[in-house]
């Protein structure tokens, strides 16, 4: 089974090489060397979904409360990332608990979640959530240049065609969570400089 897939892949990459040679000829770029070693490119939302799952694994979670045997990941304004995560959901477990995915739109729904992911531009929502959830063991993850300033503990950044992340120790402590040193080691600590978004604020 694995072998067949590998052969299929090789066939595809052969066709890909041909296509690339054609581009080069068409465009007059005239060099096919680049066609070798085609790097795999993934949709950013799929990578973000995988990151969400990984993050949860590096956090020391308090034991599950009685009556809640599921680990709840909630998304706010990030439907595409939720779609990607949904696909893999049945196979996942976090802290030995099956994973449930919820798409939420109000602060009240936050209480049942262990991890909440905010899509880009949801700064005011994140600020409200951060204020409302202080002291609760909830990991707030954002995908916005100013995520950490608005109170998230982990913020994703697109850098050089890769998804990286930054961590706020203050926010982790505020929610009584601890991240493993391995997670910290992979973080890019980038603070947002004064920009127009920062200054003018955003709508709710």
């Amino acid at each position, binding site marked *: 089974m694995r072998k067949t897939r590998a052969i299929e892949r090789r066939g*595809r990459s052969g066709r*890909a090489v041909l*296509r*690339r040679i054609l*581009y*080069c000829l*068409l*465009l007059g*770029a005239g060099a096919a060397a*680049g*066609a070798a*070693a*085609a*790097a*795999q*490119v*993934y*949709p*950013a939302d*799929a*990578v973000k979904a*995988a990151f969400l799952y*990984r993050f949860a694994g590096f956090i020391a979670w308090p034991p599950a409360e009685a009556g809640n045997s599921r680990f709840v990941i909630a998304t706010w304004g990030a439907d595409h990332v939720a779609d*990607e995560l949904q696909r*893999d959901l049945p*196979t*996942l477990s976090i802290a030995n608990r099956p994973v449930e995915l919820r798409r939420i739109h109000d602060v009240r729904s936050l209480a049942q979640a262990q991890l909440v992911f905010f899509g*880009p*531009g949801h*700064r*005011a929502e994140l*600020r409200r959530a951060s*204020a*409302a959830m202080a002291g609760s063991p909830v990991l707030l993850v954002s995908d916005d*240049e100013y995520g950490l300033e608005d109170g998230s503990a982990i913020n994703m950044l*697109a*850098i*050089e*065609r*890769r*998804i*990286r992340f930054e961590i*706020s120790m*203050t926010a982790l402590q505020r929610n009584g969570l601890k991240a493993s040193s391995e*997670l*910290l080691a*992979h*973080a890019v*600590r*980038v*603070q947002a*400089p*004064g*920009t*127009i*978004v920062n200054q*003018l604020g*955003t*709508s*709710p």
Partner: protein
Amino acid sequence: MLAIKQRSKLKGARTAAIWLAILPLRSFGAAAGGELPNGDEPPNDLIRYSIDELANVEVSTPSKASDPIRRVAASVYVITHEDIVRSGAVSIPEALRLAPNLSVVQNSASSYVISMRGFGGNPDAQNFSNKILMLVDGRSVYSPLFSGIYHDAQDLVMDDIERIEVLSGPGATLWGANAMNGVINIVTRSAYVTDSTLLKLAEGNVDRSAAVRYGAKSDSDTAWRVYGKVIAHSALELSDGSNAQDDWSRSQAGARYDWSGATSGATVQGDVYRAVQSQAGTGSGSIAGGNVIGRWRRHTAGSDLQLQAYVDETQRAAPADGVAFVLHTYDVEIQQRLAFGTRHTFIWGGGERINSYSIHNSSTLLFEPDERQLSLGNVFAQDNIALDDRWTLTGGIKFEDDPFSGWNAQPDLRVNWAPSDRMDLWASASRAVRSPTPFDVDVVEKLGTMNFLTGYSLFRPERVSTYEVGYRGHPSERFSMAATVFYSEYSDLRTIETASDAVFLPLHWGNRMRGNTYGMEAWADWQLLDWWRLSPSFTLLRKRLHYDSGAAGLLGVAEAGDDPSTQAMLKSSMDLGPHLALDTSLHYVSALPEPALPSYVELSLRIGWRVSGHCDISLNGSNLLHDHHMEFTAPTGERIGRKAILEARWRL
């Protein structure tokens, strides 16, 4: 007139031909797009990746619909790092051509006029584009001497720019005086992101450049980079085709250090530069300068505090009998953002700036006095209130004390309504001023031994009140757009007045023009396919200016600016597989009214080839449709011809 019409038909035919040449690639690209994101690997492979593997996975370009700037209640266009790299721009003014809400006019090899919502100025009236502010990493590069921006004094390694935010409309409450029509905010990348070695070499028929940057993380909290860049620009041609002899070259070096602790962070950065510019028949002029800026930030629950200080030196030496100057700027600023409860975000701040200069007068253009030390202070406050889940109100005011006109109040009120998560409607009312400068007050222009034109000691700030309504939305994940309609009322605009009703000379500056402008700015971003993005945009501008009663009315209202009424652009970005990118941009600028200049359409095209993870090669052509075009009338404007540049970039 007929000749112009025929030419524009030809332009159309050529444009079509180039698009036809590109179109057959679509089918190949579509196949490539299919293999990219979801094809080869089953999706659950990714979810099993380690954190390290995930951090190294290459992702396809995210859609612009997810840009957080879309939720700001103002007309802001963001030129991203990706946009800059993909445009192949070698200088900041060329990168600014990517913003639809800017008008970028190249006059000579080194001189650009960049304006927003009109008022690009008129060189015959000694009127310059003086109603926009530009900041580079928080440092103002607006010249306090003549009001305006020396674009030849600003440069960066283009790869180190994180983003350029172009705000049209008054931005005075937060950024201060002179942001009457807008703000250009250039933000460079944090040293954490540039922790690699970059080497760039570019060779073209007009520009050639080399840049090197070395960056590293010293530990998990600190990172730094150093860089150097040299660039040489060939001379343009005069309108008769002869060599304008205005070639110039520039070198710059700089460094940046970032430290980031758990709750605070600091940045120290600086640059030094020098340029030599030839001028036909008069030898060469030079510019030189340097700056150091330090910023310290502290984030605690509910508060962001920032302190910033900088020192800047700017020198210009003109050839032969020209004006030369040395200007030192010292600036300190404090700013704090506070969250009160869950509804209020309050920002307050203040600052003090000292401009100390010494001017070497020429025999025909003098500043009296030729040295001054000017201090400019300000305080401001702004509150952003989330009225409920859908409505936000932002109100703010800045008080600024300028050395010539005293205290000025610059208020700003904005309301934003988000009827759904996919749509924002906003409205604003704001006021801003352009403060008087030594050029308005101290200048003396001589005609032989006689005073021809003098500054005006009672010169008042130029004023504007602007009202805007805007829409910003992303009806689907693949499509986003923004549109803004504005109406501005100007008063006290600078004019040239006679000595008295009976005596003509000496002329002096006055504040006797007023009027209004209105128009529209709109742009969209359409991710047509995973590998193809189209970005159309256009701007419209109408100006209705007139003189106050009693004004001399010399030169006519056109002295305020010779601005195009319409600009339009269509950009296309294609990823033809993981190694090949094709970017094209078609740009239209309508005719200039007075002095008259025909409209033009131009095309640029860039092919970028990623040879390996470390090396890229690109070929960039601009102004491809015509042998040459002009962006301003002669003698100020010069011919701009076809450009081609081959660039190689290594990242280690």
